[in-house]
């Protein structure tokens, strides 16, 4: 899941464009999934995803490899865009209803479908901060150090929070409906 992408600060425009496109191809789905998990709104997630990549494109030269990975840098930008959007809208729309329609399940077994519905409901019931951590860990595939960079906290704190969020998700999945 995790990919190593490099983008030199002083590369040529053509090289920079190619590097950015590679980053986009590798992370677009994850950024969208993260934004959707945070915002719970399809149109808002699309807007935030587009905004995040545009900001990243404009700020390519500000990326410093010594301060973290490119994925952490990108998800930091996406997080700021998502939080700005959250603040602007002052609401969190429900996404759970229309999401499965765009995601045809590969298997039709009733047991698997029921399990995913349980997980979806558990995620929806999580605190937004826990849901963000689940998205960064499961969808974006960031390690704890990268999550720490995105959230502006220490790596150990990020690990603790991830552990807590996963525990809560597992408890929510096991909780009687």
């Amino acid at each position, binding site marked *: 899941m995790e990919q190593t992408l490099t983008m030199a600060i002083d590369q040529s425009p053509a090289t920079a464009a190619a590097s950015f496109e590679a980053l986009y191809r590798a992370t677009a789905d994850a950024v969208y999934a993260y934004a959707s998990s945070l915002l719970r709104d399809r149109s808002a997630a699309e807007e935030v995803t587009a905004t995040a990549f545009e900001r990243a494109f404009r700020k390519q030269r500000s990326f410093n490899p010594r301060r973290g990975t490119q994925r952490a840098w990108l998800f930091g930008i996406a997080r700021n865009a998502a939080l700005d959007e959250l603040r602007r809208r002052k609401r969190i729309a429900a996404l759970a209803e229309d999401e499965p329609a765009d*995601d045809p399940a590969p298997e039709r077994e009733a047991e698997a479908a029921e399990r995913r519905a349980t997980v979806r409901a558990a995620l929806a019931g999580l605190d937004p901060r826990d849901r963000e951590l689940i998205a960064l860990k499961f*969808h974006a595939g960031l390690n704890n150090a990268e999550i720490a960079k995105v959230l502006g906290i220490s790596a150990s704190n990020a690990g603790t929070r991830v552990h807590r969020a996963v525990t809560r998700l597992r408890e929510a999945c096991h909780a009687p409906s």
Partner: protein
Amino acid sequence: MRRRETTLDPAVAAELEALEAALAGDPAAEPELAALVRDVRTDAPAMAPAFRARLDDRVERGFPKPARSRPRRNLVPALAVAGCVLAALVAVALVGGGAGNDSASRTPAVSAQSGPEQAQGDAAAGSGSSGAAAPSLAAVPRTRRVERTTRLALTTTNVQRTADSVVSATQSVGGFVQSSQVTTTNGRGSASFTLRVPSARLDDAVARLSKLGHVRSLEQSAQDITGAYDGAAARLAEARATRRGLLRALAKATTAQEISSLRARIADNRRELQRYQREFESVRNRANFATVEVDVTSSTRKGEPVPGGGGSWSPGDAARDAVRVLEVSAGVALVGLAVVVPLALLGAAGGLAAGAWRRRRREAALHA
């Protein structure tokens, strides 16, 4: 900013390792965690194809910006230029004010306290010269007679050479050295001169003398002696008329007693005439020749100009000028920093506060 790192609880670390194994698809991962990972990922929101196509297109075109009706100007360069100009103006004002005394003394204006009004007065006199307009003898009416006195104090690194130059400069304007006293040892010491120069060339003489060293002070005074001049001239004319009358009477005298009496009176008249002649010439000299008193002392600073060079620009002068330029440049830079640094600190503090406030508002959105 370095964040405080704490060690993870061993149990938490172990569970995180198990989670990482499940996320990595490790077959040995905990089955329940692996299933959770699989379900969460399977249920991950996916981009709509239409949005994906639009975003792909924008990425390929490099996120073209919509055309602006008016281009936004970057004010930073303009503000920087304005700040530099302001700093330069302040620096020039400060440097100019600080060096004012020095430059005034180095380039003295040939000036005097007295003006035309004083010159036309009966007892106008004064001392000091700084900032006063130079009176021109041409401005004094021809009917008025003015006695001028100038005191000039010079410092130099070589008194002997400057003393020689004082004599040369005096002679070059048609004047002469009335008295002088020079005491030198290895070029250092002091010298004083009393010079007499034609009043008509006083300004020229002072200008030439001022170039011979660093002018420490310059005082000029003027005294109207028209009354004394006219009185002496009248007494001389009267004595001459008396002499002519006595000579005519002597030519007409017939008796010995009369002739003897007239000769005695003519002898008295001759002495009187000589006295009045000396008196008149003295007053006329006071009007026609100005007195210039020059004091020359050794300079205590190495930076004083070398006299006797006739104002030529030597390598030493160039070095001093270069140092001066560097001093002024450093002053300008210092003033500029005094302006820019507080502004930069304020801007940085404001930026940090704004960033913290923005982060706090963003985080607050998650609590909603």
